[in-house]
């Protein structure tokens, strides 16, 4: 039988270091691999800028255009809800803020625990909805690979274990907390090697999209 406190300390200690190391190494390697490829010079006379539109698209692409919303309302709503929920739970829960502060030395105000709790519950439901949608929508079903289900799982686990730990539904608590931390670590380890990279590369992709279109005078 595992010793709950040993388990918790292992997840907080050595395992956390491993996870952070693999994540940082893998992700940095990925980013450098992208940037070093560069772009060929563009000799066409520009109609607009690149930087401004690039940054603009980083933000604007978070909201679907009206037509897309009409054609895929479930996809858009559920996707938005769980992404927003995930980030609220990740970034605005006080214990997480303390953790980030201890690692990066920056902090910001958090939300009251019950608010984060409610958001987490909604996020969990939305993620289940997203999974069902992936299994049932013909396009998503067709284009999904093993990786997509793996990523869903490793994203879902930190949420559900976090919820369980917060509500102390597994006894003793160190075991519950350890499971949550371990789930987050698995997420970190898997991140650089799957589509979870989009958490970082989405900014690059959107910037390039905005820049490519912006140069031609289109706000993309």
């Amino acid at each position: 039988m595992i010793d709950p406190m040993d388990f918790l300390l292992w997840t907080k200690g050595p395992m956390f270091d491993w996870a952070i190391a693999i994540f940082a190494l893998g992700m940095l390697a990925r980013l450098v691999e992208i940037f070093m490829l560069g772009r060929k010079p563009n000799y066409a006379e520009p109609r607009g800028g690149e930087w401004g539109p690039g940054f603009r698209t980083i933000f604007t692409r978070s909201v679907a255009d009206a037509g897309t919303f009409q054609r895929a309302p479930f996809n858009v709503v559920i996707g938005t809800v769980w992404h927003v929920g995930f980030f609220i739970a990740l970034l605005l829960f006080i214990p997480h803020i303390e953790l980030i502060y201890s690692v990066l030395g920056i902090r910001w105000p958090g939300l009251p625990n019950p608010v984060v709790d409610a958001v987490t519950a909604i996020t969990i439901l939305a993620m289940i909805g997203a999974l069902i949608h992936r299994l049932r929508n013909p396009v998503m079903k067709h284009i999904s690979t093993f990786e997509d289900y793996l990523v869903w799982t490793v994203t879902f686990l930190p949420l559900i274990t976090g919820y369980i730990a917060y509500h102390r539904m597994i006894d003793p608590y160190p075991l519950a907390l350890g499971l949550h931390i371990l789930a987050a670590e698995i997420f970190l380890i898997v991140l650089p090697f799957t589509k979870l990279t989009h958490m970082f590369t989405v900014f690059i992709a959107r910037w390039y999209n905005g820049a490519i279109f912006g140069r031609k005078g289109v706000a993309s």
Partner: protein
Amino acid sequence: MSELSLERGLAAFREEIDAPVAAFFSSCIRCGLCATACPFYVETGDPKYTPILKLEPMRRVWASEFTLWGRLKGLVGLAPKVTDEMLAEWEELLYDSCSMCGRCSLVCPVGNDLQYMIRKSREAMVASGHAPEGLIGAASRAIRTGSPMGLQWKTLDVQIKHVESSTGLEVPVDKPGVEYMVLLSSMEIINFPEYLEAIAKIFDHAGVTWTLSTDCYEATNAGIQIGSKDIAAELVQRVVDAAVKLKVKKVISPECGHAYTAIRWEGPNLIGKSYPFRVFHIIEVLDELRAAGRIKTEGKETDRLSLHDPCNLARKSGVIDQQRNLMDLVADNFVDLKEHGKYQWCCGAGGGVSSNERAEHLKMAAFKRKKAQIEEVGPDRMVTMCATCRTQLEEGLEEFNMDIPVVGLTEMIAEHLVEKEQRA
């Protein structure tokens, strides 16, 4: 004699992969939203036409050769390979079911410019010998005769004579030092001779000096459509040489969408340097003249008119307001389609689909999206500014027994010009 091969195709994939491509593939979350943006999926309902799937060969090359993880997987034989059979299967996806309209690039939530990658993928398809016959034929004719339709100067010459006699105006040919060199498209010359007459009238009206060139009158670029920068560069070089020879500072691309993107955006990169002249779409020129007060019109169309934005002109080139300004000049009852401008829907014929006889059924399927859009608004006539779009709209509307004529915007402007005597 050398041959196109898988190796050359793979090398082309590698050559085309740059930072944006790597960022795009790293970001795809397989949400499937790009499918809802693509007329070929929306109207066929077949998930294999999901845009991101069209890029699977390129994605595999990227994953296995441009990521550390993929290379490790490759070492243990876990990275799926791109084979000749795969590319053969993808030929339909990358050509027949994609008009390179770029709508998916505007909708993808992570910002993937899918159209950018489809254009690049076609380089590898060509190099590996997997381009559709229809497009090879067009490219071959373009290189060998100067026109993708195999037209010769003689044919144009007859038209010039015709325009001159019917308008009493001169159609300048090979005149150096004028302001604009005008290019045409073979499709226009054959299907819509009104265009040449219209610009002759408008330029005379506005006092613009211009010329055609016997060395190069063709604006379209079959190399871009098939996706070969080598072929495309050769065709662009002809335009550049003609413009340089005539010492013009401005070149006008006709009412053709892809011709404009080819010369305006790809051309300088194909030849590896900026041009000694500037490139405009005829609609940009007309709007500039309008803004400068050099076009005086009288009377307005009173029937219900709507507008089809060519993808290449609007979404892919940022010419969106100009055509609306011009519509306001001559139309009383203009109504936009619901999704227009950068979010317009493709007519279904672009990106070489119309030159690819095999893709006829898909072309018509994709058109149904446009048809639905038109039905929503119920115009009496449609206006557009691309000969390919116009042909497709005409064919499509006829196919569905919809009695909605399609007109070119330039002609429509020409029809409302104030007669010279009246102005004086």
